[in-house]
């Protein structure tokens, strides 16, 4: 079935439903939980707070007593882009900058040893992905995306057991909930000639398309933690993938105020993840650590959407995704420079699974690299406070092969800055 006019734009927006769900270049989930991760980018072999529930459940054996934990990472996302016309010229004269682009990663956890030496349990409620962006309504990007909001939250139950002095195992069960909404303007003139989106006066014929979806799923994780020799720790984690079905409403409001509604169901896959880490105490008060994470994103080759009631003849859509796999490496150094004080620095590189022709304006994720620094302070017996700063830069996006209509061929740069704060209290 060949779609034309409004149907094609509806198809583009439906295609965005899955693509919008990745703030990070690497995985579906943002990994920046806890000062150790945010301060040095390497945590899997020594997750020594309640964020072990997310990073490596076996690491819960590094905690003792009963611990309450709270953290929050706040992201400011910067992006500048210009769009190519059919002649290869960039528009407009000045870069288009989002009105808003922010993200949050809250984490609330509780762990306990139940008075035992080898057993740990924990629960946590957290949001690996809360990302919202709004693009200007008076720029040509409004035909590609206007608003996007994605929320992915988890509730995790975790257990860990110290099998021997050199081996611990841990497991998680996760309840996932996801909500996504995207909006865009629609204009028949732009559909007939994509270069018309750069013309003034065309906005009075704009219609608006809103699509939303929500889903719940269950996944599981398995973690291992080895300590072959004192001072050397190795961690390994497998996080299962899960199929996702986002269901919700579709609303099209034409330029003359007519409203057409329907429902939609979109399926895509969250891939499984393999993670490994090493932490080595290279000297007294010094730790050198590295993490590697792999996401099997190649499972996302296409995305299927069906509509409850046809809209303008369209009953569904199969969108090519053509994702590759994704990789993230991080390396960091931790130093205890005074009793009760730790400082960290780190570097990471992240390879995005999204091919250039599939990168979208509202979610311009390409490969990226970043630096981080953090401090942790132990002011009294059971209290620990952490503060971290992360700065990432995305590789420049220069897409001239977009398959969408109107094409999202663009040249742009992006970056983000995150400030993280955590508080841990062990009773």
């Amino acid at each position, binding site marked *: 079935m060949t779609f034309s006019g409004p149907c094609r734009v509806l198809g583009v927006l439906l295609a965005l439903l899955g693509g919008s769900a990745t703030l990070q270049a690497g995985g579906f989930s943002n990994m920046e939980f806890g000062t150790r991760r945010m301060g040095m980018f390497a945590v899997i072999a020594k997750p020594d707070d309640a964020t072990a529930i997310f990073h490596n459940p076996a690491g819960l054996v590094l905690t003792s007593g009963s611990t309450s934990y709270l953290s929050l990472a706040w992201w400011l996302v910067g992006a500048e882009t210009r769009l190519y016309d059919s002649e290869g010229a960039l528009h407009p*004269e000045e870069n288009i900058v989002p009105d808003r682009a922010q993200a949050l990663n809250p984490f609330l956890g509780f762990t306990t040893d139940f008075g035992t030496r080898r057993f740990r349990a924990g629960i946590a409620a957290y949001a690996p992905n809360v990302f919202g962006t709004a693009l200007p309504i008076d720029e040509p990007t409004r035909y590609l995306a206007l608003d996007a909001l994605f929320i992915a939250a988890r509730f995790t139950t975790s257990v860990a057991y110290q099998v021997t002095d050199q081996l611990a195992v841990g497991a998680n069960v996760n309840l996932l909930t996801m909500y996504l909404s995207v909006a865009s303007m629609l204009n028949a003139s732009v559909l007939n000639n994509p270069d018309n989106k750069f013309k003034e006066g065309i906005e009075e014929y704009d219609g608006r398309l809103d699509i939303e979806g929500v889903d719940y799923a269950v996944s599981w994780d398995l973690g291992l933690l080895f300590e072959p020799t004192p001072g050397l720790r190795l961690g390994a984690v497998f996080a299962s993938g899960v199929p996702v079905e986002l269901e919700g409403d579709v609303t099209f409001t034409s330029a003359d105020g007519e409203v057409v509604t329907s429902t939609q169901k979109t399926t895509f896959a969250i891939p499984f993840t393999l993670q490994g880490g090493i932490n080595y105490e*290279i000297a007294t008060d*010094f730790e050198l650590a590295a993490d590697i994470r792999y996401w099997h994103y190649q499972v996302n080759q296409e995305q299927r959407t069906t509509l409850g009631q046809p809209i303008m003849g369209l009953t569904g859509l199969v969108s090519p995704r053509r994702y590759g796999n994704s990789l993230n490496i991080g390396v960091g150094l931790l*130093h205890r*420079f005074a009793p009760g004080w730790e400082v960290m620095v780190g*570097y990471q590189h992240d390879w995005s699974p999204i091919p250039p022709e599939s990168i979208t304006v509202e979610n311009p994720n390409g490969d990226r690299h970043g630096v981080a620094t953090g401090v942790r302070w132990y002011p009294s017996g059971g209290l620990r406070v952490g503060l971290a700063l992360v700065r990432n830069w995305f590789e420049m996006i220069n897409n001239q092969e977009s398959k969408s209509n109107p094409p999202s061929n663009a040249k742009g740069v992006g970056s983000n800055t995150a400030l993280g704060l955590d508080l841990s209290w062990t009773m």
Partner: protein
Amino acid sequence: MRKRSTVWASWGLMLLLVAPAMVRAEGYLATDFGVRRMAARAVIAHADDGTAMTHNPACLLLLPGTTLYVGHTASVGAMGLRVYDAEGQLAPAQEITPEHWYGHLPYLAAVSDFGVPWLRIGTSVNLARARWLEFAPTALSNVSLVNDTAWTLRWGTVAAFRISPKFNLGVGISLLHTRRQWSLGATAANSGILPEEVGNLLEREGSGTSYNFNLGFHFRPVRPLEIGVVFETGTLMEMAGDVRGTSLTHTTSFAIPFQLSGGARWTFAEHFALAADVRMWHFQVHQEERSNYGAGIGEVGIPRNYEQSYAWSTGLSYLPSPGLEVMVGYEQEFSGAPANTYQLVDPTRDGQSVGLGAKLEVLPGLDVGVGVAQTWFDLLDIQGSALPDPFNAKVRASMTEVTVDVQWTM
């Protein structure tokens, strides 16, 4: 038609107005200061002289008492090129070579602990880039450049703190002032606006001032091992000036990218140390450069299409006798400048360098050093220039640098 010639003329002007005057392939601000950098090529984890002000501010804690540092790096470049015609034939028969291509990078620094073991305050004044490059006005390459005189003065202040016996932290701020004077020949693109009295040479000048910050970490987990990490912010440089012989003025903006650096130094045997550095410049911010000429021409831009730039280096240090240190090193650089926007005003490409040098304590507290480095740039073969005045050419280049420095510790 007049409008078209004016637009093309503005493109021609842009060719020279904003291209960064790199001395090396890597960053905008030169890094070849001090004998350790020049000879061992790797310095970030152990910048033990006044050039720590720019290499790694946290390393100021390696300097005891009060230190005065004077250094100078002189460079001489060699280049040969031939230009492709529309048929793909190279001309002229003999290579075009510059009339001269040299640079000078003086460095003056003062650092003091003010009698406090955990603190160092330092200030420095240096030329972060200074280059003179000139070709004959009649050379076939004059569509790209005739001459370029450019320098950037940097005045920096750093505070460094010993957080623990194994951890130093340094922060600094620098004021940057750039001035350039450069010219190219009158071309089909720009001759339309040249007054007769200007002749066949289009000459401009401009200057601008900005500032940036740097943050350095220095760790020493165990006695033989040092680790350094540095972040230096980028900045936006706005240059304003005149087009000589015309009533035109310009305001031109371009970005100096931020820089990430990391290094390690390991004293693996008595009297021997091995060091390595990695540097990255975020040159992808340099996609287009814009100039505003005011009424008549307005704002115009030219594509730059830069990518990231990297360099890695490794070096060996040997102390054959008390007070004497001998160093050798190797470096490989990966330029962020693509071939299709290449200009002679930015004549460097990917390259590799070797260095050799020595430092000697001639009197108690008085060290002198000398270092030399030779860089060979990869051959450049451009046949797809994307510039308004296409510059398709085959270019070879190399550079020799010599550093002499004196450090007096009171």
